């Protein structure tokens, strides 16, 4: 076996994230455990894709991501979402907004179903959900923002396009464009949970490496007791001003060619 080890991604159980947020200093201690894992990125909210684990205390991953991401200034962050109740316009907007405020270190993990909530009457196709989210991320290229103060031209609006997605009966109809321009890494990393079939994903995530080797392995969060030197781990030893690696850099993923085309 000579394969190059893939950069690891650590998962945070929902209950640990919720408990950390509810206690003063809890997010900093959780960040220490994540650092101790050796992973380059962390996935939050993925318990919801698992029927067995998706029913305990939890936080909305997009609401918790900022605080955790600021406590981990050089790690990537993947947040979970499913089409169970959320609309792709809202999800696309929140995740791309997060990618901006966390300096291009963000990704989205799309799963088929949020097992923590009852489904709505309308059921949506998860691949279509992912397709609409990704399409919306490509409607407003960041480099169209020119900021010409003299001419009063904020952006070259000719380069902003609607999406005009029409999924037919029972599908999504989404005009676009998104309110948010693309990001420094082009667009957030788009991952799918291992039971989702969507060819446009950057990454397939699974709890375990499957037989085909396609799914990216996730490592478990080290127990708090195993994190021996939190004080050293939490001191700012890296120069975050010069080390501005994006999540795509951290995971070795290319910038999608379509962005800014």
């Amino acid at each position, binding site marked *: 076996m000579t394969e190059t080890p893939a950069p690891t991604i650590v998962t945070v159980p929902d209950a640990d994230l*919720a408990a950390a947020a509810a206690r003063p200093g809890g997010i900093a201690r959780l960040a220490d455990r994540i650092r101790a894992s050796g992973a380059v990125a962390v996935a939050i909210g993925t318990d919801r894709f698992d029927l067995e684990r998706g029913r305990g205390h939890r936080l909305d991953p997009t609401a918790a991501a900022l605080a955790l991401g600021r406590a981990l200034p050089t790690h990537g962050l993947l947040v979970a979402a499913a089409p169970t109740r959320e609309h792709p316009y809202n999800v696309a907007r929140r995740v791309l907004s997060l990618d901006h405020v966390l300096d291009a270190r963000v990704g989205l993990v799309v799963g088929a179903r949020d097992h923590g909530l009852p489904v709505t009457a309308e059921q949506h196709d998860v691949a279509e959900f992912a397709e609409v989210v990704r399409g919306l991320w490509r409607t407003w290229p960041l480099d169209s923002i020119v900021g010409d103060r003299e001419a009063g031209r904020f952006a070259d609006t000719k380069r902003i396009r609607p999406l005009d997605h029409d999924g037919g009966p029972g599908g*999504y109809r989404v005009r676009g464009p998104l309110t948010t321009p693309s990001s420094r890494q082009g667009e957030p990393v788009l991952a799918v949970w291992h039971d989702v079939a969507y060819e446009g994903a950057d990454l397939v995530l699974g709890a375990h490496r499957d037989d085909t080797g396609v799914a990216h392995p996730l490592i478990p969060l080290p127990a708090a007791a195993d994190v021996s030197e939190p004080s050293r781990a939490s001191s700012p030893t890296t120069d975050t001003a010069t080390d501005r690696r994006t999540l795509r850099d951290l995971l070795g993923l290319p910038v999608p060619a379509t962005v800014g085309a």
Partner: protein
Amino acid sequence: MSADAGLILGVNLQGFGQRPAAWRTQDVEPTDLLTAEFWGDIGRIAERGLLDMVFFADHPALGDPNVRAYGLLEPFVALGAIADATTHLGLVGTASTTYNDPVDLAERLLSLDTVSGGRVAWNAVTTYDRSVSANFGVATNPERPERYARAGEVVDLVQALWRSAATGVPVDHHGEFTEFAGAISVPPSAQGHPVVFQAGGSPHGRDLAARVAEGVFAVELTPEPAREHYRAVKQAAETYGRRAADVAIVPGLSLVLGSTEAEAQRRFDELEALAPDGYSLRALGTHLDADLTDLDPEAPIPAPILDREVDPVTYGPSLGYHETVVRWVRSHNTSLREVLRGFGGYGARIVVGTPEQAADTIEEWYRTGAADGFNLMIDEFPRGLETVVDELVPILQRRGVFHRAYEDVTLRGRLGARARGL
């Protein structure tokens, strides 16, 4: 009545400022609007001035960024960045009751409230803008009665879900628009759950505010109608078994400040000259729901535009703005040009003057029962906010209307303490 030192001050975060040209008159990069650092700095300045809260409107559709660049980040994401940079500042975000799933919304807002230590408020709006519905697969927005019926149900369900998070007792909701049986499992926040604000000024909106809101973002141009609306909402709250003090009335107030009145006027003129062509005219046209572009600027606005009976069912835009602006135009209608000259707040009261003059207006409205506080619409960020914090706030403190320390860490604790006169 308002308690001493109980004035509530919030800041409406509108891109680089309320003036559409604010990005052209300051040394800022357009993409600053996308960074945690920019919004964190704004939050820190506001907190240095002991301001109660920052506020984001929301418009889940892209407008022309060359007319007005704002709302590039989703409001609660930007508020998360501000939460991370501050410890006491209240964080008020707008979210539509029409275009959000109530269960998702309840989880998401309570999550940020827990992460931020109990500082979040939800401004519940129904969303009338036609460009939004197309992003959500709806041909047109529902008419006002349906929007508000849904809004009432969604707010009730969201609040019931927040209570379920604390008690563990499941919600069993079978409404006209939504069905949900279950609970959400987010840990309760330091203030229990988010505060609820409401912004609609129509009869439907005021009724919703009286029933459920802890704060109302009002639209007022002159004090007498403001006092009427203030009394009406408080009295309606009492008919729902609430106390008048349980709902805070917070109109918008536009500020362009200078060390002299002449300097403030020069700043205002400079910002107006750099604004996109016809910006004020379009803003006025939006509130009157009429195309004003071909009118004679030297003639008064024609009576039919002002006299038109508006159908509260089918009229899409804000009825609160419409009513307030029509009433104001009638008393200033010497010519369209003159109306526009006084319309610098784009529908909100504006003070172009010194911090003392702004304090006069604020104190008068506060002490005469026209407002419990103001949502300040500041000309430029960060510069104009620093002027407010360093020059206006100390005047209001000396006059005994604004607090000298945060009474409580949580937003609800603070609003409650101010209402009780503590």
